[in-house]
């Protein structure tokens, strides 16, 4: 495809890599919303250009560095990227887990990130395990003025909730969706009482059905090595990928009639409604089900 015409997707900030992946003075070729782009570091400053058909540099677009990532836009965003004050807290480690390519819609990826009821089946023995499969009631809402989805009071029994966890615990989660392709979760820290660990996904949609997913952790953990932390996150994410690449249709259906939902899907249904109200079409299911099934 060529660059999307979906203004909801265009007028937003997207992360396209952590700063360590982009060597100063070297161009990095990647793709965003159907458009080939070039990202480069110019001293301490990030820059982004559309790539022409011949590979040359075309129109320049805004770029900025935030939370260790390069954020860019092909449009004119009405608001900045999400606010995460936890990045300034002492004692936290920022662990960038790199980018993983997933052949799925960005919206299916975010929806899966919000979902707890798959833990016993997809992350068996780590984030959940039969017979403790119940999703108890939780709260979900759109918070203004930032227009963000928050799900709170989310509790789930987990055999091994984090790399640093020693045995099972009931983890409490909060989930936050700050823009259609960006989500962060806050999870009971197994080490520091009363603190939250953060895990986030910045989804870079290359095309409607292909994304690079940038995952990070911002955790209190003095004992695990960087490798341990990345391995833990990658194991979880590879399990998710095996699901995400096998959902059909590829695009996320926004109509509540298209796929069956239960109470545990409250945040997912709110996410779909929120996307519908924004008028987002990129990565949604629009077609005829018969051709999609083929």
């Amino acid at each position: 495809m060529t660059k999307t015409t979906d203004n909801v997707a265009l007028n937003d900030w997207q992360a396209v890599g952590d700063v360590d992946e982009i060597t100063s003075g070297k161009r990095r070729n990647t793709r965003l919303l159907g458009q080939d782009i070039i990202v480069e570091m110019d001293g301490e400053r990030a820059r982004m250009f559309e790539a022409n058909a011949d590979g040359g540099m075309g129109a320049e677009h805004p770029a900025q560095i935030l939370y260790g990532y390069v954020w860019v836009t092909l449009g004119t965003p009405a608001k900045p990227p999400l606010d995460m004050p936890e990045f300034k807290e002492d004692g936290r480690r920022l662990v960038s887990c790199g980018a993983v390519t997933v052949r799925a819609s960005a919206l299916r990826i975010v929806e899966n990130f919000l979902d707890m009821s798959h833990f016993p089946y997809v992350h068996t023995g780590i984030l959940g395990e039969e017979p403790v499969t119940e999703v108890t009631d939780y709260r979900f809402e759109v918070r203004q003025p930032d227009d963000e989805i928050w799900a709170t009071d989310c509790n789930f029994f987990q055999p091994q909730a984090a790399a640093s966890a020693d045995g099972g615990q009931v983890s409490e989660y909060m989930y936050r969706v700050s823009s259609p392709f960006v989500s962060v979760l806050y999870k009971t820290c197994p080490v520091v009482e009363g603190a939250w660990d953060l895990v986030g996904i910045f989804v870079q949609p290359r095309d409607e059905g292909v994304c690079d997913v940038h995952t990070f952790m911002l955790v209190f953990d003095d004992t695990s090595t960087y490798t341990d932390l990345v391995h833990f996150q990658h194991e979880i994410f590879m399990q998710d990928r095996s699901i995400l690449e096998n959902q059909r249709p590829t695009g996320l259906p926004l109509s509540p009639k298209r796929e069956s939902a239960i109470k545990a899907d409250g945040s997912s249904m709110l996410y779909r409604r929120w996307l519908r109200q924004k008028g987002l079409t990129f990565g949604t299911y629009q077609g005829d089900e018969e051709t999609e099934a083929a």
Partner: protein
Amino acid sequence: MENGKSITGKDTWYAIGGSSSLGAGDVQPVHLLGIERVVWRDNGGESHVWHNRCIHRGMRLQYGFVDGDRLACRYHGWRFASDGKCAYIPAHPDMTPPDDFCVPSSPAAEATGLIWTSIGTPDGPPPDLSEFDALTFCRSVAINCPSSEVEAAAAQAQFVPFTAGNTGNAISSRHPAPGVTIVEADGGEALVLAIQPASATKTHVHILSAASVADTDIPALRRHFSAWGRQFRWKTENGARTSRAESETA
């Protein structure tokens, strides 16, 4: 819904594999006329063909697992009873799933050692092969050609009979039903080829031998026609490539 309105052959029964290739508790993907289905066998031995998509979040059911007489989706563990109705949702263990939580199914039948299905609504049972006293399922081969090319190759197919007294010098073929070709050697030994149009570019051939043999010879019979199947695939793919290249240069 996947009604396949405009698809040629949608109301035809097609074989999708050997009954012996699907054990109790097995779940396998099916490709038929470019459409995806899933076939699974419950622990009671009955086979089921369903749409390959969970009604909840669209996950392919081919990756699910069989739990007694139910199929479970890999994503959230929803259990579906043999009639397709959702029977249990682990996230809400006390909830009775509503009646409309149901995976659509396709017709499924087992006859002559094969599992048969149809995308649409076929009239009557699968093709009648009762003229043969014994049919042994030997193997399935996947061929990277459209079914029209495989049908043409099947009509011309030769084979060396397994049983003594059958010379194989004179071969005749007939086409008693859509998707079925019978090749007969001089002396009467027959090979039944059940042809499954998987997609526009891929075809599966399920090979049955009508040779009358003792039980102890069945492994050798399978090897004989398994080797034949590999050759048939090679000849069909290469023959089709050659004729396509010729028609391009002509």
